[in-house]
């Protein structure tokens, strides 16, 4: 029997190989789901272990304000996570006061005023700021920002400032997050169609008026998504706040005092090398689970807001 052509096509071996490769690739694709399951499982199994201890009460965890897990007396009164949450939110909020206006301002400048040349200079600056690891920001906080804060508040206003304080961490965190806010906001602003700007100008509006009364309001949901994301990043941030804000959980809104964030607490315990199964070893998972839920919710909201924005303009 003579083969009619020299092209043999695909052999059975090749077809089987295709199937195997498909399967392997499928597993790679599903692997990310495995990671999520892993995160949820590891966080929550230890958390459940933590809460099933007699010394810990679920209610007091979320309502108590004293966090002294390393105290000699192990009591449920010492496991109130509110002071950690307050520390985290205080720092995140103040950092947003910095990153939001500066980030949005930069975005408006780059999107509405800057020529290509200026953009080519400033966008790399923002990228560099974004690429600096947070530990470097931590160093910057205590070596540069904290002395300035102390000079301003103690010498000029006579107000006491502890060496580790929330304000220094917030400032540095704010700077760190500016690029995130700027880049998402800029994308949102540029998505606003030119025709809307033209309509504004044709009615006799100045550039300032077109930007603030037409473009920014039109980009608002995209910009809001940027803000939420920035806040979420600030909540999850670890090294800069651990270095600058300290490890004293305090239920305070005074940014000049030392506070501890959820992330700083987890670092503190990890350095102490608490063996697994101990109450401290498990407490970090409980705090970590709380952190995960908080950032997850914020990220989801930010995504939904962004989706709504994209629907309007794409």
């Amino acid at each position, binding site marked *: 029997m003579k083969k009619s052509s020299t092209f043999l096509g695909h052999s059975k071996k090749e077809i089987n190989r295709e199937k195997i490769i498909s399967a392997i690739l499928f597993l790679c694709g599903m*692997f990310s789901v495995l*990671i999520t399951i892993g995160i949820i499982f590891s966080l929550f199994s230890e958390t459940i272990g933590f809460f099933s201890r007699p010394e810990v009460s679920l209610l007091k965890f979320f309502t108590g304000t004293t966090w002294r897990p390393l105290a000699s007396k192990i009591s449920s009164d010492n496991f109130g996570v509110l002071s950690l949450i307050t520390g985290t939110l205080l720092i995140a909020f103040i950092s947003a006061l910095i990153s939001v206006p500066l980030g949005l301002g*930069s975005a408006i400048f780059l999107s509405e005023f800057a020529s290509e040349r200026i953009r080519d200079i400033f966008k790399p600056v923002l990228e560099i700021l974004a690429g600096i690891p947070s530990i470097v920001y931590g160093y910057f906080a205590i070596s540069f920002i904290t002395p300035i804060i102390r000079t301003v508040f103690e010498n000029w206003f006579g107000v006491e400032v502890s060496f580790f304080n929330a304000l220094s961490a917030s400032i540095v965190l704010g700077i760190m997050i500016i690029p995130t806010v700027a880049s998402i906001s800029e994308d949102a602003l540029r998505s606003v169609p030119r025709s809307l700007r033209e309509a504004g100008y044709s009615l006799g509006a100045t550039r300032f008026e077109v930007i603030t009364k037409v473009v920014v309001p039109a980009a608002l949901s995209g910009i809001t998504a940027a803000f939420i994301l920035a806040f979420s990043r600030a909540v999850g941030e670890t090294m800069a706040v651990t270095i600058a804000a300290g490890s004293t959980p305090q239920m305070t809104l005074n940014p000049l005092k030392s506070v501890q964030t959820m992330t700083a607490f987890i670092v503190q315990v990890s350095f102490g090398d608490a063996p697994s199964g101990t109450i401290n070893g498990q407490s970090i998972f409980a705090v970590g689970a709380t952190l995960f839920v908080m*950032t997850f919710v914020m*990220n989801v909201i930010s995504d939904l807001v962004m989706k709504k924005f994209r629907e309007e303009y794409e």
Partner: protein
Amino acid sequence: MNNKNQSDFRENLKNRHNIGKWFYFILLACLLLGLLMLTALIVDLAVEGHAWIRPELFTNYHSRKPEQAGMKSAIIGSLIVMVLTGLFSFPLGIGAAIYLEEYAKKNWLSNFINININNLAGVPSIVYGMLGLAVFGRMFGLFSSKSWLVKLLNLKVSEGTISGLQFNLFGISWLEIQLPFHKSLLAGALTMTLLILPVIIISSREAIRSVPYTIREAAFGLGATKWQVVSKQVVPIAMPGIITGIILSLSRAIGETAPLIIMGAFTYVPFLPKSIWDQFTVMPIQIYNWITLPQTEFRVNLAAAGILVFLVILLTFNAIAVLLRKKLEIKW
């Protein structure tokens, strides 16, 4: 100008244009403030650290005396972790990206995976540290003497500092395996792999997506199988973008401190790791250690010097990534 209605429209042009000018300068100030902070940071680092960038910084391990302290184990540790992370994340990341772009059908499952990956990219890095600790470091306690698995399979586990199961794969002496991974290089690299995987998948997908569809059509038209099209046409063309994405992700991984602290990297490692089961430290952790020490030479000077070296290494990686992308980019 003929303004028959001038009385009704008080245009107030001068004021409005003035506001515009102020607005411009305020916005410029926002941008310049960022530049200012960056400059302050670099100057601060240079001033405090330049005198301490000496050979000892690279040849010595950490020591209690600042004059003798160095980052040798940290630098090597960072590099090894990075290489291992790259080795692990490269196939997984590309495989997932290829699957999602070329093989997966658009249904609820692929949509779910999409959302999932985007969510993972936004999870704080410290959570990945806890994941690594639980899954790789402790392996959920499966290999402790009290676990059900040990009892079921009647495994011989040791207690003490390196608890768990140790055996040699296939009986070969240098193929030793340690379960759980404890605080080893392997555990650290695996943790970092999980951390950067979502970002690698996202950037690889973009690289694959940018390959024009006509290439695939042409290859299919010639009778190639799906894998042949993907492996011999699509992926090679997307490769520069993929590699750039991986290098950028790795350079981000070098800078991560929290996950490795949580997962158990040490701060005092006076030796170079010889195997993936050894303990290790990395540059950011060493720097963090110095920042927390009381002596000024450590927390101000050595920390600054260490950061400068660290940033240079980081910058080099990013520069390599950008150069690679420019050199290998095909312009359509």
